């Protein structure tokens, strides 16, 4: 299959006090153009790190020791500098996790939007401004002229996330990475933002890598889902399949731990500690086997 984004056997390690600490242990993932791929897992599973590695913004004290990330067939695993920069905008874009801190606090919205538009689309000031106004109304901001003149602190969290979404879709990228775009928002706003992202994705036919820990969100907007634990993909299947008959025990445990509004009164089950312990043992065994394999080579 010729996917837009293809991650194969990705190993990422972070420098810790006792040497390189594995974070991703051979992640495989394929995302065809125009599809929505959900990446779920608990905190620390490495889902955000996958997103960062794709964007090339992983922490400084980390390394990709094995595996490859391909975007449109091009190996972008270790890409940096100007070549990497050329990917952004029309190639890929990010909807960040925290809209409160992802906009520059001392720069007007207008400047922040126009800078991006003019950089990638080579527009004049006036046509960039028009494009920005159109983008803002696309994300259902009612008074775009007014919003352009404001500073981020004058907008609510939901409004800021809309601005960031507008910015992500601004240059019609082929891939958008959404890193838990709704976790910093309150529940009523979450719904609107999710719907908005889904609508824009569908109309523009952009591929979306959606990082979340919320299975309900996955059900709403994803086509395909990968479940991540301790840096390994434990299950990857279409959303219907996973929701109808999850194969992996961990996925089933995640479902049991999710509140169901359609079945009130049913108790929530935490993921069994024994299962976590077993998965962690598996991860440790994997590390040991890999260390052995690397020292043999």
């Amino acid at each position, binding site marked *: 299959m010729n996917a837009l984004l293809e991650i194969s056997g990705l190993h990422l390690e972070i420098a810790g006090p006792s040497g390189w600490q594995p974070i991703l242990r051979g992640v495989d993932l394929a995302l065809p153009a125009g599809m929505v791929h959900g990446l779920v897992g608990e905190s620390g599973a490495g889902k955000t790190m996958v997103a960062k590695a794709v*964007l090339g*913004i992983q922490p400084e004290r980390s390394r990709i020791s094995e595996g490859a990330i391909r975007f449109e067939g091009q190996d972008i695993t270790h890409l940096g500098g*100007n070549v990497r*920069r*050329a*990917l*952004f*905008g029309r190639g*890929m*874009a*990010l909807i*960040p996790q*925290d809209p409160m*801190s*992802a*906009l*520059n*606090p*001392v*720069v007007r919205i207008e*400047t922040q939007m126009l*800078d*991006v538009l003019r*950089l*990638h689309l080579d527009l004049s000031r006036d046509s960039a401004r028009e494009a920005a106004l159109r983008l803002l109304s696309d994300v259902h901001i009612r008074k775009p002229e007014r919003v352009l003149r404001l*500073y981020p602190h004058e907008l609510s969290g939901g409004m800021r996330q809309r601005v*960031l979404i507008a*910015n992500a879709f601004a240059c019609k990228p082929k891939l958008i990475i959404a890193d838990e775009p709704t976790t910093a928002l309150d529940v009523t706003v979450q719904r609107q933002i999710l719907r908005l992202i889904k609508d824009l994705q569908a109309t523009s036919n952009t591929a979306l890598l959606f990082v979340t820990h919320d299975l309900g969100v996955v059900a709403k907007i994803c086509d395909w889902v990968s479940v991540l634990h301790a840096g390994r993909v434990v299950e990857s299947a279409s959303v219907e399949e996973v929701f109808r008959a999850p194969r992996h025990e961990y996925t089933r445990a995640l479902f049991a731990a999710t509140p169901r509004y359609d079945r009130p009164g049913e108790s929530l089950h935490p993921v069994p500690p024994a299962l976590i312990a077993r998965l962690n043992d598996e991860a440790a065994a994997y590390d040991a086997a890999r260390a052995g394999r690397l020292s043999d080579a």
Partner: protein
Amino acid sequence: MADVAQWPAVLRNGRALLGLFVFLLLFLVAAAAPLLAPHDPLEQDLVNSFLPPFWRPDADPQFLFGTDSLGRDIFSRLIYGARIAFIVAVVAASLVCVLGTMLGLLSGYYGGWIDTGISRLVDVWMSFPPVLLSIVLAAVIGAGLQAVIIAIVVVDWTRFCRIVRAEVLVQREQDYVTAALTMGLGRPHIMLREILPNILPTLAVLYSLEMGIAIIVEAILSFVGLSVASDAPTWGGLIQEGRLYINQAWWLLALPVGCIIVTVLGLNALGDGLRESLDPVLRR
């Protein structure tokens, strides 16, 4: 600074207001020196030397603060001294600000060997006694206003560089910088248009403090005769001349010292006031 809502806070701060007042006064006196000064500051009148200031019974009302050993009007010389002080303060502080900020931005944002190089240079630089270094520099470059300004810039850029570097290290980890990276914005853009606006409050504080320092250094250099031409009226030069007659006419020394103290205190108050009103932590 860029935030309109912060302006009233600055104007509500007593110290900032006081400092702003002193700075504006210095500017007005410097700009209007020819209009304000009753006499030519260089005009000698040996018949009228050592005239006493106004509070003495035998004072000449024509010479408010009396005259010096060559019969030059002290009041006019102080006014023209303000002109030199103002020029040195603004030009030197601006150049120091530009140079130090540029190096600090590069050092903090790029890191790596650039940071190591610039930081070690700052360490070495700061291990020289600053006054000695500026005296040596002024002596090597030669006397004159440019020499004084160059000496101040060469000595003082380290202060800006260090603080800006530390600020940049904090800012570059912020989410908005990462977001800018993923929008494909280049490093120069991120340094100058994303990070720089966020450290403007710090720069404003440093700038006003630097103006006070520049005035003191200029006074030191004129005191040792390394500033502008020796008969030109500088506050440091006036102190140096007044020192010789301290037993007969103490005010020859006290008046220029007073000018320097008031100006530098005012500029420091401006710096402190700006810091109080622009720093979100202190403002709370």
